[in-house]
């Protein structure tokens, strides 16, 4: 029995531990802290953080192709299964009736996607190739599954930082948006009341809606079909009211387990050797910018509409058009009420918010089509 060899075998963990691993463990720890102490998207940041810590323990074999993370990565990320399954559950949680009751609110879901493209330009200026620049830009979709889906197709090597940015910034909404809203809108604008006079929405409409959206968006933007269709499948399960057990299953069993797997797997890609690069910091910075550009564009468009309609639209709801369902919508409504306790615009904000969700997915698909088209 060769003790020298044996000692190497036993001490391999420590001898292969690098300063980089140390740093990444700290990063993982921070993500976990944000999740536990600040409750920022805990269902995702907690697993991501833990996966990050794990991935930086040397020679555990978990990141090998036949290790736990390797298996999960091949099964759920490479195949895009995880983000799509999560979208089924998300779709079953979304209520589109506020949007259907005020179809014009859809408009606000378009402007909020500008951040995607603005960031694409910035990223190219910083020297990223188009495919990577686009993947970074899609952080501006402010929608986890969309970002992961697009990044996996265009630049899987950047998946980790993009996913982390997408989810952590989404949880920073209550911190990032309010100042921007106050900066870009006048108190008078924020006090604008929007009486809630919905068009009647029959249950039938709610059932036809997801099918119609799938077909139309699917035909126009085939690359967006997987995402939009799974979102709409979930919504159909919900609104049909005849398959409660399926609707419940996708909102609980399915989405919970998938989210956990997605989280630890994303986290496991944050290995020091790959993650600790200048690019990563650039991506995190660009992601934040994408987020700001989204909000600004949304607000400015809101102000425009407000002018056009002669002050019948409260520009705040423009900020809800960035998607980030449902936080952004809720936040917009709260700010309006802080300005005037009687100003109740939640329905409108949610309309814009859900439109933003759809807009984000469309934008993601369009971006995918354009980039694959030009490459």
């Amino acid at each position, binding site marked *: 029995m060769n003790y020298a060899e044996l000692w190497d075998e036993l001490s391999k963990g420590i001898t292969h531990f690098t300063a980089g691993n140390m740093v990444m463990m700290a990063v993982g720890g921070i993500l976990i802290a944000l999740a536990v102490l600040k*409750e920022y998207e805990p269902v995702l940041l907690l697993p991501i953080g833990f996966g990050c810590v794990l991935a930086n323990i040397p020679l555990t074999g978990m990141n090998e192709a036949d290790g736990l993370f390797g298996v999960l990565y091949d099964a759920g990320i490479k195949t895009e299964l995880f983000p799509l399954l999560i979208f089924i559950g998300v779709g079953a949680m979304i209520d589109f009736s506020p949007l259907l009751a005020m179809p014009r609110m859809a408009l606000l879901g*378009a402007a909020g996607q500008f951040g995607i*493209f603005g960031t694409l*330009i910035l990223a190219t200026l910083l020297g990223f190739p188009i495919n990577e*620049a686009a993947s970074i830009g899609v952080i501006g979709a402010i929608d986890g599954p969309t970002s992961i889906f697009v990044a996996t197709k265009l630049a899987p090597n950047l998946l980790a930082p993009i996913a982390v940015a997408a989810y952590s910034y989404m949880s920073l909404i209550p911190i990032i948006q309010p100042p921007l809203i106050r900066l870009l809108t006048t108190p008078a604008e924020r006090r604008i009341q929007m009486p809630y006079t919905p068009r009647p929405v029959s249950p039938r409409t709610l059932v036809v809606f997801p099918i*119609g959206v799938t077909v139309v968006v699917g035909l126009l933007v085939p690359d967006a079909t997987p995402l939009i269709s799974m979102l709409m499948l979930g919504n159909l399960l919900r609104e049909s009211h005849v398959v409660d057990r399926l609707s419940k299953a996708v909102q609980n069993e399915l989405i919970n387990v998938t989210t956990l797997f997605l989280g630890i797997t994303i986290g496991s890609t944050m290995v020091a050797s790959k993650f600790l690069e200048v690019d990563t910091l650039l991506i995190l910075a660009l992601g934040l910018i994408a987020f700001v550009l989204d909000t600004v564009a949304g607000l400015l468009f809101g102000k425009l509409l407000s002018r056009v309609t002669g002050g019948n639209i409260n520009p705040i709801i423009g900020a809800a058009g960035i998607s980030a369902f449902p936080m952004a919508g809720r936040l917009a409504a709260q700010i309006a009420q802080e300005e005037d306790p009687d100003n109740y615009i*939640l329905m409108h904000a949610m309309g814009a918010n859900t439109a933003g969700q759809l807009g984000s997915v469309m934008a993601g698909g369009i971006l995918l089509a354009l980039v694959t088209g030009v490459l």
Partner: protein
Amino acid sequence: MAENLSTALQITVIGMGLVFGGILLLWGLMSLMLKMTTPKDEETKGAADVPTETDESYERKRLVAAMAVALALAEEEEQQKPRLFPMPPTAIVSAWQAVMRTNQLRRRGTR
């Protein structure tokens, strides 16, 4: 690089254009679906109940109703089961839904 940039700019222009186009189409689609799937009587009935924007007291009434429901909701137990929001065309009920939604949204969605 310069070439990349021009590509990026073109993608941006075309992209945003398509996004707006898609959203406008969606708007049209929704209006169409509403037309097709809403029975006539409901349509009119819905219109009938719509309050005028100047109706201050109404707004206040709606808010009160909303709060009442909010309190009621605050008490009730089972947070688990997903709520569904039928959307009948009477304004007071929509206030009620509004509150249910707030209440739902207040809950940490994905926790």
